[in-house]
Structures are given as structure tokens and as C-alpha cells.
């Protein structure tokens, strides 16, 4: 490690080097994990594994659990209808109690989606290594942390040892310059990135998002971008910490305080990539050229500008790529060669670890205020956490959404994962602010168009896929 210190390093390399406990030859590094986030779906078998081996959780103080995936978003007064989900939540509670882990259970004032509450509670901090049995752990990279998803075996490894066996990934710079136009947001940037590189384009890499358009984003917008790194195949995506990062973290419940804050801040300021450091790959995007994005197919890489035509399989030469496009269009029942504009929409979902934070809800509310959700549309608004929900209610956003005809629900993953009661009916079309449009992801036979919160609201009020820029007025200050 010491030898590497003289050479200019990237943000990723600095965080990686800082956490290597040891590196045996021809073996993965033993990487120390600062924060382990846990939820009910990918942890049960890991806790069972610990019991079978007679092991404890090595650092319960660095382990935090919540309930989000199979957790219903119906009112707390309504009993959980699904016996399996109820049993899974009970098991999470039992495991947390038995192993001494802090748990924000259903009904807790801090409960919420794991990738919303980590930053919100100040648990997520620059320079940390953060893991969770969830691929959207990449979200936390917005703070300059190295954060990635792991499987249940690895959850068990971290619970028992606070370490993981990892090979050092390659780095890819994603440089976004220029300024976003009106109605174009962070979600559109990341959908454009994934459309450009494809869902496997980032495999083996950690992304670093950089450039003036990334600097201009708020912390919550940066989280939206890092969140979907995995949809481009990268396990992690990072943004160098800056004053916005430090302001966001300061004063939060688990943020360092007093002298510890000063010390942490001094370290965090050393993290940005050194001048002269190199990446293994780089892509460049001009933010000013972006339009609102929407997906038309069955993976997040199948995205287009809202005014662009859906690609035609007849123009694809690779046989498997052609087959994939044909299969996707058949599942979606979409015609190639024309834009999705005007396509009917049955459900609009505003939520998920991608877009359920207070700034997402504020932006959506500012556009929907005084309008009505179309009669043919069901709109669900699902705050990412109980804290987001309370804040939104304090600002009257819930009233705006309800008066528009939308449902205002409890915090959780909801319709992003369709394992908690919130799901599409077969054949329904949804515009969703979530992160995955895989076949059946939002319910068997359901069809998902991924888009930004603004594009989601535009679809809700018009009942069809709509270019949000046509709804912007002087009264709505967006970008």
C-alpha cells in the first residue's frame, strides 16, 4: 500500500487502499467493511449460517438493519396479509435481537428503504466501505464511499468477520459536462449513461461520475445517479465528496460531532481523485444534449429520448441482440419505429431507492399541484422512509398528492420489487421512477417504462407517455 501513495490515485483507489487488511498473492484482498446494512430478504440464511457455526456478529456497532423489501406499504393498523412476509419480518426482528443489531422495524420512526435511511441517518459517510445484500447499495457512492451489493453468503462473511474477499475492480470515469435543460434531471442522465454503455457495459468496473454537470447536482440527485450504476453492470459508482456532501452529512444523527467531525472532514477532503490519476476507461456525455429519457424495453439499457423512435429489430444485425429486442418489444407489446409519446399508461409509481427522497417528492408535487391524475391512472406515491414521509407531510406534499388523486403510502420498496402487495396486473403499463424494467419486475405480466419523477407526473396527469417539457410553465421552477 505504501508504495502506491506517491502515485496519483483516483477516489476509488484511495478508498480501496485504505481498507485493504491484507493482500495475499494470487488471492482476493481482505477488505474491511465500515458499514453493513441489512434487510429482511437477503439476510435470513446468513443469520442461520452464523447459528450453525456458533458465530457472533463481529461488529454489531457497524451493522444496521431495516425492513423494506417484503414490508407492506399499507397503513400500520392493517395486519400483514401475507403470512410468508410476516414470518420473514418476524425472523429479521428475532435475528436483530439475538445478535444485538440495531433494527428500524416496521412502525419505527426511522424505518425506510435501506438506501434512503443510511444517508438520512448520517450512517453513510465519505471514504467508507459500505455493503448490503442489495445491488442498489451503489447509491451510497454519492458520498464518495465505496458501496456495493453482495450476496447472502457474503452477508454472512461480513457479519462474522467485518471483511470481504474482493478482487480490485477496474475504474471507469463517466464525465458529464454542460448544463441540463429544463425538465431534464439526474434520472435522465443515468438512463442516458446506461442506454449508451448497455446493461453489461460496466461489468468489472467501478464508475466515478465527474464533471460540471455532476458537481451541479444536489446530494439526492447524485444518489439517484449512483443508485443505478448496477444497471450499467458496475457494482459501485462514486462521486467525489465536496462542500455539498459535507453540508448534507453535518448534524445528522450518526455523523461525527465536534473534534471527530474536524478530523473526519480533513480526511474526506483528501479523497477526490488526484490530478494525473488515470482510469481504465472513460465515457463522456454532454448534459446539454440530453432530453427526458424513457425506457421502452425489458432492461434499463433499452432507453431512448422521449421524442426518439423505439428501435427497430430489422436494423439490428447481431442475431442474439436482434432476438433480445424482438423479445422485449413482444413482451411490452410496443411497435418499433415510432416514439412512445401518447402510449397509454395505467399506473404511475413514484418511489423506490432511486427516486423517493424529499427532493423527488417536492419536485413531483410542484408539477402535480392543481392538476388531477387522469381517471384511467392509478398513481402511488411511496416515500422512501418514515422521515421523508413526515417531512413531506409537514410541507403539505401529501395533501397535494392526495388532492390530485394519488395514493399516499407508508415507506418501503413497494412496487419496485412487487413482493409486498404493491404490484401491476398482467398487461398493465406503468411509468415508474424505480430502477428496473425487467419482465415481471413490477408484477407478473406488468410492463414498465422507467423515467424521472417529472416524466412520471406528466404521465399521471395526461394518462399517456408525455414529454414533461410541454407541461412546464413559468410558475414551475424546474432546473
Amino acid at each position, binding site marked *: 500500500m505504501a508504495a502506491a501513495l506517491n502515485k496519483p490515485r483516483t477516489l476509488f483507489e484511495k478508498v480501496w487502499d485504505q481498507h485493504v487488511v491484507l493482500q495475499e498473492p494470487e488471492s482476493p484482498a481482505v477488505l474491511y467493511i465500515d458499514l453493513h446494512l441489512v434487510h429482511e430478504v437477503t439476510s435470513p440464511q446468513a443469520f442461520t449460517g452464523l447459528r450453525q457455526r456458533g458465530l457472533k456478529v463481529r461488529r454489531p456497532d457497524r451493522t444496521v438493519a431495516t425492513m423494506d423489501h417484503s414490508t407492506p406499504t399499507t397503513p400500520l393498523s392493517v395486519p400483514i396479509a401475507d403470512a410468508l412476509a410476516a414470518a*420473514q419480518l418476524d425472523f429479521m426482528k428475532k435475528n436483530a435481537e439475538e445478535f444485538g443489531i440495531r433494527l428500524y422495524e416496521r412502525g419505527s420512526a426511522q424505518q425506510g428503504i435501506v438506501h434512503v435511511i443510511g444517508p438520512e441517518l448520517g450512517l453513510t459517510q465519505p471514504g467508507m466501505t459500505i455493503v448490503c445484500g442489495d445491488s442498489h447499495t451503489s447509491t451510497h457512492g454519492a458520498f464518495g464511499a465505496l458501496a456495493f451489493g453482495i450476496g447472502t453468503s457474503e452477508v454472512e462473511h461480513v457479519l462474522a468477520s467485518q471483511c470481504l474477499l474482493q478482487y480490485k475492480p477496474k475504474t471507469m470515469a463517466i464525465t458529464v459536462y454542460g448544463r441540463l435543460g429544463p425538465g431534464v434531471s439526474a434520472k435522465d442522465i443515468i438512463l442516458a449513461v446506461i442506454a449508451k454503455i448497455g446493461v453489461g457495459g460496466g461489468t468489472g468496473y467501478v464508475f466515478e461520475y465527474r464533471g460540471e454537470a455532476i458537481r451541479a447536482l444536489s446530494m439526492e440527485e447524485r444518489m439517484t445517479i449512483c443508485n443505478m450504476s448496477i444497471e450499467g453492470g458496475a457494482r459501485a459508482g462514486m462521486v467525489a465528496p465536496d462542500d455539498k456532501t459535507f453540508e448534507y452529512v453535518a448534524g445528522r444523527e450518526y455523523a461525527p460531532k465536534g473534534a471527530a467531525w474536524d478530523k473526519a472532514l480533513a480526511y474526506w477532503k483528501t479523497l477526490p481523485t488526484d490530478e494525473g490519476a488515470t482510469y481504465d476507461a472513460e465515457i463522456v456525455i454532454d448534459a446539454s444534449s440530453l432530453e427526458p429519457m424513457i425506457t421502452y424495453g425489458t432492461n434499463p439499457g433499452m432507453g431512448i429520448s422521449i421524442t426518439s423512435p423505439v428501435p427497430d429489430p430489422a436494423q439490428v444485425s447481431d442475431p442474439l441482440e436482434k432476438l433480445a429486442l424482438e423479445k422485449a418489444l413482444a413482451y411490452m407489446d410496443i411497435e418499433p419505429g415510432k416514439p412512445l409519446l401518447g402510449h397509454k399508461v395505467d399506473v404511475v409509481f413514484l418511489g423506490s431507492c432511486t427516486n423517493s427522497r424529499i427532493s423527488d417528492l417536492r419536485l413531483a408535487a410542484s408539477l402535480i399541484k392543481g392538476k388531477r391524475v387522469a381517471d384511467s391512472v392509478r398513481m402511488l406515491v411511496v416515500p422512501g422512509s418514515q422521515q421523508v414521509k413526515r417531512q413531506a407531510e409537514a410541507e403539505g406534499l401529501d395533501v397535494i398528492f392526495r388532492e390530485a388523486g394519488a395514493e399516499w403510502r407508508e415507506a418501503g420498496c413497494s412496487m419496485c420489487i412487487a413482493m409486498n402487495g404493491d404490484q401491476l396486473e398482467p398487461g398493465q403499463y406503468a411509468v415508474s421512477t424505480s430502477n428496473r424494467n425487467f419482465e415481471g419486475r413490477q408484477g407478473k405480466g406488468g410492463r414498465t417504462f422507467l423515467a424521472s419523477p417529472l416524466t412520471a407526473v406528466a404521465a399521471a396527469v395526461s394518462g399517456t407517455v408525455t414529454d414533461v417539457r410541454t407541461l412546464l410553465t413559468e410558475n414551475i421552477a424546474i432546473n
Partner: protein
Amino acid sequence: MAQFTTLTARAMPLLVNDIDTDQIIPARFLKVTDKNGLGKVLFCDWRYQETIPSVDAAEGATPRADFVLNTPTYAGAKILLAGDNFGCGSSREHAPWALTAYGFQAVISTSFADIFRNNSLKNGLLPIVVDAETHATLIDLLEEVPDAELTIDLESQSLTLPGGQSITFPIDAFARNCLLRGVDQLGYLLTFEEQIKAYEEVQHV
């Protein structure tokens, strides 16, 4: 941990690119608290005519004749020949649990998603990466001889076709050794307790 040394078996072609873990096992089956019995719901929504709400409900469901898993030609296959970027999407280890419970011991593709690959290696499911040319050769082979048997030898990192043609596949030395010897990775990690403790002391974590 599950071991892998050699395997001679038939292969099933599932030639779709970017097969995500939601197709391998839909999220509604992730409410289980153990690892067992997920083979019944492998590729569930491509496999059955009905909507299967829970793992238990898959018993007696009607197979879709047009899905390769239900084709008698490939019954008993232990190798899956898949399209590019297999296993993308979520981190659910239920995906390799479902594949191995069904009977697959190896997947061949031109690439794998990182988390899926990691999860597979911990469950004795061997992800074999081949180049596009080899991939095409295997597709042609299974088209001409659907019951062709392939032989995988992990020690020599070789994949041998019925005609004797042999291809070397890449795998890192550590993963190879773990699979060959059935190394318990957590057990291995825990041997570094002293170093982990020292790291914590030095770093004040």
C-alpha cells in the same frame, strides 16, 4: 462449501442475452427464510402457464411446452448455455440456489454479471466464460446434436466437446482452488482474525 472438480453432462441452450435474476427467480419467491426447494420456481414466469404465487404452489403447475426447460430433448442437462451478461440485476443469491437446486452445475456464457458470478462460485455453480466464437460453436453443436455431452475439467480449466475439441476457459486461481477443494471461504477469512484486529486498532475503527 460445495465442490466442483469434473462434470460430463448434457447442455441446455437458453440463448437470451442479459437474463436478469428476476427471470431466474422472481422476487415474490424471496420471502423464504431458507435456501432449499427453489428449483421448482427456477425461471418460473417463463416456465409455467399459471401465475405461481409461492414456492409451494409450483407443485402440479402446467409447464409451457415452448420453454426449453420443459423440452424433453434437454431433460437432465446439468450445463446451461446462456446468452451474454447472464445474471444481471439484483444481488439475490436465490438465483444460484435455484439453478443448483434444479440440477445445474455450470453455466456457459460470453460474460456474467459480477454479483451473480460471486454468488455462483460460493455455491459450487461454475460460471464458464467463453469467447463469441466458442459460444457460436456450442450453439451449433447443440442444434445438430441436442444430446451432446460436454466435459468440464476444472483442474485443467478445459471444456471438451464430443469430437474431442478442447477449449481452455479462464478462472482466477483462488476461485478455482476453492471449488476444487471445497474451501469454506468464511473459514478462510476467519483465519485472519489477528490481522483484522490489528487493522481495527491501527485505523481506530
